[in-house]
């Protein structure tokens, strides 16, 4: 048993927006975007946000670890809630133990790397999730560059896939971009200035600092995880005299920049493909720099290889429909008719009574007849025994579609509204709303998994409620 990174996970939403399509739509007004109009970016579905993506990467990370997580941290610049524990909801959805410490880190794109640096320096046992779902103004550079995603690492005592060597941080109030409170979009400054004054002057100090603490030369490090825009990586490679191949793919062509999540997302790919005994420098940037140095172990090659973000990047649904993207992300207000006026007020006291049933999809398995039912009830649906049900989460179960419809009458931000009966492998049957299925693609008998998603948005009170939805089962 030793301390380190025990596991890592990633998640990238399946939807991809073709950047050429963006340029075709807005290029009449912003011809300067032409140079960015290649590749594709990831786009969260209408029911995804930083919380739901955090749950996805958390599930990916914790799969098969059996680790009792005592502490969860979530880093983001796009927390759905400013005052409601975001990490707490993620912990609930992951069905983690109730005696758990929860922490939200925000305020900077390097919120995640800073928190990771502290946790690793103090041998903290924690699930460290970074997740970001930044919106961008239509026609902006950010709309082209950004992507949505989440990734995480699990820290603790066990069989680490990587061990911590050192870290170093620098703070400089270089405002390459900022987003004031209550404002939707980032305000960005000229990339050349950021590269010259930021990446080339601040980053090398922190990187050198971490290397020195570990007693190695920067040139000896095997992998660099650096996610700067505007040629930052190329410039840094040249300045430090380190060949470009040692810098990890920044996923620009396939996913886009996922903000606070991006260092973690890139790291997952590096770890996924690294061998044992290799050193990795993780760099976080934003009003300063965090540089962390880790070294992979033999345990990496016996378990987590091939478990990086590349699996999610390969699983994609492409769209060239710019207005579809805009509407999904609420950048364009289409007329969905009077049915969209539905009042989605949540009775929060009722939610509190049923919070575990909802957040972790806890059903009940009858101790008398073994029937699994959702929701759980006092009296068993199959044998009629009272108070016989033992709590059991359905969220990790797979199942098969028994019946379904594509409903063009019901309101959903992404018509048609698809829902149906699912029979789970644990033996339960539940009627559920589906997500991520293309119209016309679903068949009875199809296999599904469950995804934690926004169920409804209360536009009047700005509350989002979450629940589990069947999504396509892709064996990653």
């Amino acid at each position, binding site marked *: 048993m030793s301390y380190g990174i025990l596991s890592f996970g990633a998640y990238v939403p399946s939807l991809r927006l073709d950047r050429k399509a963006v340029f075709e739509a807005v290029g009449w007004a912003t011809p300067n975007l032409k140079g960015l109009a290649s590749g594709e970016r990831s786009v969260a579905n209408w029911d995804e946000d930083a919380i739901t993506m955090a749950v996805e990467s958390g599930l990916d990370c914790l799969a098969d670890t059996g680790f009792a997580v005592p502490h969860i941290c979530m880093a983001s610049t796009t927390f759905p809630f400013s005052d409601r524990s975001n990490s707490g909801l993620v912990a609930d959805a992951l069905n983690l133990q109730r005696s758990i410490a929860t922490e939200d880190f925000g305020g900077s794109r390097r919120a995640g790397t800073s928190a990771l640096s502290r946790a690793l320096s103090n041998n903290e046992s924690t699930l460290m999730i970074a997740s970001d779902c930044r919106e961008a103004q239509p026609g902006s550079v950010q709309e082209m560059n950004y992507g949505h995603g989440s990734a995480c690492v699990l820290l603790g005592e066990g069989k680490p896939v990587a061990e911590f060597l050192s870290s170093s941080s620098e703070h400089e109030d270089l405002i390459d971009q900022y987003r004031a409170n209550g404002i939707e979009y980032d305000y960005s400054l000229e990339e050349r200035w950021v590269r010259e004054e930021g990446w080339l002057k601040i980053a090398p100090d922190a990187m050198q600092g971490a290397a020195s603490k570990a007693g190695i030369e920067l040139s000896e490090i095997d992998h660099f995880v650096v996610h700067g825009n505007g040629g930052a990586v190329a410039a840094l490679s040249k300045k430090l005299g380190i060949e470009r191949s040692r810098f990890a793919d920044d996923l620009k062509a396939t996913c886009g920049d996922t903000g606070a999540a991006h260092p973690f997302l890139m790291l997952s790919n590096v770890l996924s493909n690294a061998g044992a005994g290799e050193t990795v420098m993780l760099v976080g940037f934003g009003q300063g720099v965090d540089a962390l140095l880790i070294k992979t172990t033999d345990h990496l090659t016996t378990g987590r290889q091939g478990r990086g973000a590349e699996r999610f990047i390969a699983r994609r649904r492409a769209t060239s429909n710019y207005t579809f993207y805009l509407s999904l992300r609420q950048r364009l207000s289409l007329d969905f008719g009077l*049915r969209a006026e539905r009042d989605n007020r949540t009775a929060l006291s009722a939610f509190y009574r049923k919070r575990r049933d909802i957040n972790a999809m806890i059903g009940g398995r009858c101790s008398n007849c073994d029937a699994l039912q959702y929701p759980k009830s006092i009296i068993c649906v199959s044998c009629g025994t009272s108070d016989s049900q033992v709590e059991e989460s359905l969220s990790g179960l797979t199942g098969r579609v028994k019946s379904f419809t*594509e409903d063009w009458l*019901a309101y959903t931000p992404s018509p048609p509204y698809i829902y149906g009966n699912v029979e789970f492998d644990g033996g339960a*049957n539940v009627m559920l709303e589906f997500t991520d299925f293309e119209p016309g693609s679903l068949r009875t008998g199809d296999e599904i998994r469950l995804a934690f998603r926004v169920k409804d948005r209360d536009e009047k009170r700005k509350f989002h409620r979450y629940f589990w939805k069947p999504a396509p089962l892709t064996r990653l």
Partner: protein
Amino acid sequence: MASGIRDKVAIIGMGCTRFGERWDCGPEELMVEAFNEALTDSGVSRDQIEMAWLGLFFQEQSAGKSGLPLSMALRLPNIPVTRVENMCATGTEALRGAVYAVAAGACDIAMAVGVEKLKDTGYPGLPERSKGTFDDLWLPNATAPGAFAQLASAYQAKHGCDSIDLKRAMAHISVKSHDNGLLNPKAHLRRAITEEQAMNAPMIAAPLGLYDCCGVSDGAACAIVTSVEKAKEMGIKDMITVKAMQLAPSNGFEMSTTDWDGSYLQTTRIAAARAYKEAGITDPIKQLDMTEVHDCFSVTELVVMEDLGLCEEGGAIKAVLDGKFDKDGEVPCQIDGGLKCFGHPIGASGLRMAYEIYLQLQGKAGERQLDNPSMGLTHNLGGHPFRNVASVSVLGLHSE
């Protein structure tokens, strides 16, 4: 030992408004219209009515809660009025209340009124119904067509039938109901459609197209009932009596167990079995002369034919396409146009079905009159196939 309701209660008067988009009428006008017809038909005076039941589903959209809307609209002399609501079985529930009151000897004459004013929502289709505070957190915001469309996908999966055959049988059902509605002056939709139109209509909830869905209508219906003894005293000849009234709500079997395959209506089967027993029916195909079933969607009617034992399981497509339930078929279904074309003002629908059978048994159904029917069945399905309330009633000519 309870003996059931068979031949204890007589229906002595009925009324039904024209169903449709009654833009110039509110629930008050609709209730008064149905009541006046029923009162005239019964020959009793309004002061002889001792108790009343009001069936109304979407109170938010129309008349509000409680029995007050009926008591106020008809200016009833402070008699007990109970409002009942059991989704699409609401109208039948109102009738059941009145029938049971008379059978219990609590009063001599009771009345049931069902009403729904649906066309004040500002959009087509049914208003969304509330699900309560917990179900709202997890159940899909299903519409009625979306919920019933799943009968089709599950039926197809179970019986391995061809999707085109299924769609054609569904179209046949709608074409038949449109043909029947054409002959009914009170029907909402009075025009013939072709099988091709039905099959190629815009999709509402796959595989249900526009013509697979029933009308959303305003309307009211009313029944006045008394005991068989009292009806005899009143000198009523060719009495129409209640043979059975059964209700079966879901208990979670469909939704929460893996034992239901989604291709049939469990509660309808249960309610039908109880109703046949109560009415003394052993061979429904031979003994029933007509049915008015809950054809909210074409596929519902198709599946219900099996659930009521009017054709064998898996045989509905063939039976429908063979014309077994057409106007001139073995057991005509929806001779008045059904929910599909007569229309579906929810609180009134169960009573509207009883109204058609009441007319047919008396030979008063005009152009659409069947040849000497003596017994008919009504069926409602409130809610969705996976969680619902089914009612099955049998009405017939009185027999001693």
